[in-house]
């Protein structure tokens, strides 16, 4: 089923469908979690773009990391990421995931998210407002439609790079079989 021609056009249809309906699992790690309720409800209403909340990683396509990540939470985040099924995307919220933000010199937070998980996009701001979140997600939808959002493939390809970084911070990490 995945010879090149069929893969090409069929994959486009799937990418188109993927960008039209995204199930979002927002992993409320930091202070960004509180930005999502207003984005989902009446005033900003993210569901008009087909993005809705998912209850479990099994049903989710998009993982929102909203805020600073302590090393212990990173272990749970990696486990949840691996429970999600391809195609899956990661979006980092706020400066804490970009470069450590105001917790840059704290001993127990990680400084760059994309060392540990393939991040499609960062939304800057010391917690971005709902407009910024919507703008970011719309750009993400465009990336998915054009097929550029291939974070999950990058994760598969250089798996050991990511695993080393994770083990460097966490020590031994339990992998799903």
């Amino acid at each position: 089923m995945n010879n090149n021609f069929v893969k090409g056009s069929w994959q486009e249809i799937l990418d188109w469908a993927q960008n039209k309906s995204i199930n979002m699992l927002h992993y409320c790690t930091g202070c960004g979690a509180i930005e999502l309720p207003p984005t989902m409800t009446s005033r900003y209403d993210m569901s008009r773009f087909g993005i809705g909340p998912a209850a479990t990683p099994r049903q989710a396509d998009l993982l929102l990391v909203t805020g600073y990540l302590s090393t212990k939470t990173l272990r749970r985040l990696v486990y949840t990421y691996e429970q999600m099924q391809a195609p899956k995307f990661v979006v980092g919220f706020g400066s804490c995931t970009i470069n450590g933000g105001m917790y840059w010199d704290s001993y127990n937070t990680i400084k760059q998210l994309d060392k540990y998980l393939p991040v499609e996009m960062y939304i800057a701001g010391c917690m971005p407002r709902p407009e910024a979140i919507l703008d970011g997600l719309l750009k993400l939808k465009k990336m998915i439609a054009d097929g550029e959002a291939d974070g999950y493939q990058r994760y598969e390809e250089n798996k050991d790079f990511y695993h080393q970084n994770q083990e460097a911070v966490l020590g031994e990490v339990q992998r799903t079989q």
Partner: protein
Amino acid sequence: MRNEKDLLQLMNAHFNPLKLEIKREQNVSLEFEKEELIQALSFLKSHSYKHLSTISCVDWLEEGEFELVYHLFSYTDLINISLKTRIEREPGIFQTAKEIWPVAEFYERDIHDFFGVKFKGNDNLEELILENWQEIPPMRKDFDTRKFVNDKFEWRDYNGQKHTD
């Protein structure tokens, strides 16, 4: 129902606190010698100070001492009392309060995690909050968090210039 002054007189009568102070309404603090503190704790527990809110620790680096503060509260007197004592920084050993309040075991584990104070009599002092931590206890004043962060994590490279230089 004792008010702050009767409480201080009571403590004065039975122990000889180094310092007595009524910080503000319903808040009293006393300072004791190391040896006397545990008896004062059990004495207060029998006098309606049933609730041990927490044990905190202060690192006086210059004087080379740790200061342990036990915060108690009584539901009848409605007074918060904090008992302070000083122990030397180097051996950093103190008597456990586990027999008086079982919950003290966790506060002591927490202080051991972050300050390295060892409590005689509390046998399970392994890590409560930190995970496989090899450096010196992080809350100590002589722990340089900037140096730790610089050599543990790389920084994002903004075309040649790190945002932390």
